């Protein structure tokens, strides 16, 4: 005996039982329906309307179910969930801290100030503050990832070969080739693949000339030097190529390779030292006209080219 009134009541009841699983909802509705049908049978003097009003509004009945469940669910342990959430957050936090410590240690010193150039160098060169701009470089580890520009930095500097005895070159990472063409009367350089256009530092100190390529970061330069008395090159990591040297040259590299291409017709006296790595055989000829060449590599090679 399913009247529309009964169906409507049961439909409202079902709808009001929010948050309860479908199978349980079905049982609840079936049980209430069963009660109503029993009531109709046992008390024929009562109308359906009376029975339904005695039950109460479907929403009220549903509410009572939810209330009873509410009491139960409050007792349900929330603690494990919160405990695991906290563990999750702490774990993530710990990983982040460990990562930061690693980054800081890798890029140490954290902050250093270069008074000469007025630069603040953060994270061992990863970030540099110059005047008011922030420059990111020292990214040789990422150089295969970063796109190479086609910028070329070139420059020159006049040099008085009468008064200037010594030319000093300095760089950090990269490749530098020193050439001493005949009739070269000034110093010039040309560097390729510069990521950021920084300035080469040139200091002319009358009796010596100091050129620092460090600001360029990772370099790939060719430098032409006149035949001054002495040339010294100092680098951290990369390659130094002494191409047909005509001056007494001293090259020092922490990590990498020093290549020497001697002039065929010239005698040299070689002084080579490698702490970890290989040295080719260089034959010294200790004559009056011999040019001293000194090459030192901490970790790497000194090779013939």
């Amino acid at each position, binding site marked *: 005996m399913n009247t529309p009134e009964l169906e409507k009541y049961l439909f409202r009841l079902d709808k009001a039982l929010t948050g309860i699983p479908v199978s349980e909802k079905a049982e609840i509705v079936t049980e209430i329906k*069963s*009660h109503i*049908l029993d009531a109709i*049978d046992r008390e024929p003097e009562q109308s359906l309307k009376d029975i339904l009003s*005695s039950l109460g509004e479907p929403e009220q009945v549903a509410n*009572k179910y939810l*209330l009873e469940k509410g009491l139960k669910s409050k007792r349900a342990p929330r603690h494990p969930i919160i405990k695991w959430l906290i563990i999750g957050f702490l774990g993530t936090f710990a990983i982040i801290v460990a990562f930061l410590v690693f980054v800081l240690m890798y890029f140490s010193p954290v902050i250093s100030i270069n008074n000469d150039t007025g630069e603040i160098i953060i994270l061992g060169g990863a970030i540099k503050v110059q005047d008011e701009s922030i420059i990111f470089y020292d990214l040789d580890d990422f150089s295969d990832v970063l796109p190479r520009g086609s910028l070329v930095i070139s420059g020159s500097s006049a040099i008085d070969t009468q008064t200037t005895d010594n030319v000093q070159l300095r760089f950090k990472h990269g490749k530098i080739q020193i050439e001493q063409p005949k009739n070269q009367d000034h110093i010039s350089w040309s560097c390729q693949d510069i990521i950021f256009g920084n300035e080469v530092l040139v200091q002319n100190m009358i009796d010596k000339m100091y050129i620092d390529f460090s600001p360029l970061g990772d370099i790939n330069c060719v430098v032409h030097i006149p035949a001054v008395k002495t040339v010294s090159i100092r680098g951290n990591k990369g390659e130094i190529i002494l191409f047909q040297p005509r001056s007494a040259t001293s090259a020092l590299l922490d990590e990498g390779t020093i290549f020497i291409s001697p002039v065929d017709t010239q005698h040299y006296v070689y002084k080579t030292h490698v702490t970890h790595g290989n040295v080719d055989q260089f034959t010294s000829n200790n004559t009056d006209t011999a040019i001293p060449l000194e090459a030192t590599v901490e970790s790497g090679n000194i090779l013939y080219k």
Partner: protein
Amino acid sequence: MEQLSNWRTQIKKGYLELCILIRIESKGRVYGFELIEDLKQNQLLIKEGTIYPLFNRMAEDKILVAHWETAHLKGHPRKFYSLTPYGQEVLMQMKTEFEEMYKAYTQLLTDENK
């Protein structure tokens, strides 16, 4: 005395739960409509809208166990409830505590007269 209605609700709630369990134990198994009639005969009035959610919660708490029966009794399916062994323990405990409460109550009354 409308102010009593809140008190009545509260006290009836606990008391009725105890009475329901006592009747279920005594009858072995009941279904909703049948129990409502039974309680009425014992002067314990409970609204239908109250008893079914209560059954539902007690079944969830494993105090009662429910099973559906169809076939007999006029055709439509009925949900029958009976006490679980755990439910029997709970009932025993409730009875003990209620008796103690009642003892304390009588004691309170005699003190009142002092």
